[in-house]
């Protein structure tokens, strides 16, 4: 597993998500109001809704198409069985997002 710098944390407003492409892989990265960051697969397993456009609260993201909710830490769908692929992600001391692929 390699860790890649994918840009400054400031690229993602607090409480929102953005899609990044690194090494040909598309990843949704979320920056919560509490300052945590999470990374998951970009599309909702239900109907491929763009998760980065979803509403984020605490560590939950809600798909904008049909309100499917997922826990960003575990990737687990709340109240159902779908699971998102999650990626290890952290912020370096200089504010760079480091994503592990």
């Amino acid at each position: 597993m390699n860790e890649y710098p994918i840009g400054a944390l400031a690229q993602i407003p607090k409480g929102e998500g953005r899609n990044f492409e690194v090494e040909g892989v598309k990843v949704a990265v979320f920056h919560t109001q509490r300052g945590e960051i999470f990374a998951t697969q970009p599309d909702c397993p239900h109907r491929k809704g763009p998760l980065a456009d979803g509403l984020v609260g605490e560590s939950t993201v809600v798909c904008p198409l049909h309100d499917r909710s997922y826990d960003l830490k575990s990737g687990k769908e709340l109240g159902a069985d779908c699971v998102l692929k999650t990626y290890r992600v952290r912020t370096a001391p200089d504010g760079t997002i480091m994503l592990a692929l």
Partner: protein
Amino acid sequence: MTKQRLVVIGNGMAGARAVEEVLARGGADLFEITMFGDEPYGNYNRILLSNILSGVQDKSEIFLNPLDWYAENNITLHSGARVTDIDRAAHAVKTANSTVVHYDKLLIATGSRAFIPPIQGVFQADGSLKSGVFGFRTINDCDGIVAAAKQSRKAAVIGGGLLGLEAARGLLNHGCEVHVIHLGPHLMEMQLDSQGGAILKAGMEKMGVHVHLKMSTTAVLGKDKVEGLAFKDGTTLDCDMLVVSAGIRPNAELGTRAGLTVERAIVVDNHMRSVDDMNVYVVGECAQHRGKVYGLVAPLWDQAKVFADHITGANPQAQYVGSKLATKLKVMGVELASMGVTDATEESDETVQFSEPKRGIYKKLIVREGRLIGGILMGDIEKAAFLMQTFDRDSPLPEERLSLLFDLGGPSQKVTIDEMPADTQVCNCNGVTKGKIGACVASGKKTAKGVMEATRAGMGCGSCKSLVNEVVAWFAGGALEEDPSVHYYVPCIPLKKPELITAIREQNLKSVSAVFKALAFDGREDPLSKPPLASLLLTLWAGEYEDERDARFINDRVHGNIQKDGTFSIVPEMPGGITSAAELRRIADVADKHNVPLVKLTGGQRIDLVGVPKDQMPAVWRDLDMPAGWAWGKSYRTCKSCIGIDYCRFGLGDSMGLAVKIEGKFRGIDSPAKLKLATAGCPRNCSEAMVKDVGAVAIGDGKWEIYIGGAAGAHVRKGDVLCTVDSEDAVLKLCGRFMQFYRENAKWKERTYTFVERIGLERIRAVVVDDADGIAAALDDAMEVSTAAVYDPWKERDAPKTANQFATLIPAELPVGDD
């Protein structure tokens, strides 16, 4: 500011809870926290040990704070380290292996231990318990008992109190013949009177437990291993294992050695501080407050709060005033609730009693001066919640005493969860109400486990777990019309819209994050509550609203309507459906230039460019050079119109002109649900104004009828005539006033057709037309302020409000390598 050092001796339920309370008050910024625990794990719920013993629960299920919790909260945990001395002069504690840790503030929460009476033969020469003899207090004890029970045939339990009986139940489950030896005249003297004790004994015996009362054990027989018991009356009992559950003793020796005042336990003041040292606090079973030492969990929670309030300065006046003891428990399958005294103690005390021994039902209340001072409910504890609340609050009792014991009259009066008021406590140990559970479920916790973890309901004594399960299931699954949260504006804040507005105004909350912090359960964000709160705040504060883009649904962040493939639709403004050849040409050119996959006329007489990727939207807007049509949000959408007076041979009023004025005034006004408007030049209603949220229909002589609450979507409803006015200005004024009233009073996503029926046309007319409440001017002013604050969001094409606002994909900024 340098942090103070808070050292906590004891990592049981008391110590950990006290630390949690400190952290909840921002204590992490005030203190470096160090905890010492005897046992080599994180802390666990001691009350549930009996479930481990009986095999109902697994060990892993009773841990309250796993080791991660300590790390996450920067707490240094010394587990398996026994503190042997406190040097108060040096402000330091010392452990058995001579570790010395200094403190500024010290908390003693050493709890208590099983009391082993000095019966002959119970100890071995080295002071440890004889092989086959166990206390019942720790996970270790539990492990030992379970292992021994598997080898044993006949087990004895000394002590017929709650814990002893729990131990008996556990042993029974492991297939042993079980004998309970009790010194007193009846079982569970702390909770029961003699009659209740007798009924419980009969119940126990029916299950196969042998109960021996008034038996004083004089010796534990057997040379190296327990082989039997000898009693004062000369009899003996064979057994191959023994559990001693003869009460607990506070672990107060540390206090004694440190020179603190110790009576039965370490004596504290009302701030839970040792009376001798203002830097030493004591909570839990090792604390003695106003002469009382508590062995139950509920008082501990109260003490922990007072301690935390005081030590963090959150409330320096916080005082513990003692606890009234009420417990609900299940002993070997028998449900039991007990509170206060078990017998009348004064001549004037009333006793209200019912007994049905055959069915194991017993109820007894002791009433003094019209108030409940004690009670026992056994076998049927339906009234327990009510009685325990009455007892706790010291509220006056109804004259009809019978109703205290039974629900009388009518069909089965079992209080269903539907009927249970929101403030009813479900979990008495942790003070969790039905309402709190509801808020928690609404915040996304859909499983009983999740709710229990978040609220701690059911995590105290555990006796309410089945009720918690029921309540969670009830909130999570259906029964919608009874669900109180349907009346809340957002599910995570248990307030109806008017109450929420009051709270927001009083606390001057201007951003969604501020509302969550101040009003939501635990200050937690709920993603789906963000847009409704954003809408409400914008309505209330208009230009003063502190816009947080993450609180908006994606449509409102990028000003288009998201489609199933993640692209957006773009609808420029076209008031009254009026356009021009030049405008159409430009739209066509834009569609060509940007390869817009679909161009479609909308139901609102506009043109929709469908399928535009997010990152192309700014360019499309730039080329269109038209204002946004607001076709994406919970807001004023559009006002369609018929041809009107200039060309139509039936036209009675200038519907097109009025539509343009309406759109010019109200465009972009946010609202609880979308607002679709129309104007019609005559009652033929070609523009369908009578089935719009708000419609104006010309009836001649310059007069207009205003319709409200119409719908022609999934729901079809002809609007109601609010009033007839005689000028276009009056139409604008009254439509605006109605919409403002709707904005302030409708629930989130409540369309006008529901709103008008819910509030009632007469009431709306009284407020909006006749100004019965004297708020008409205020509504008008508020609408003026809101309209003045609206701007064309498509201008954000040149000045994005957030980083990468319209980006669909951001390429990673990989550093350029050297090779």
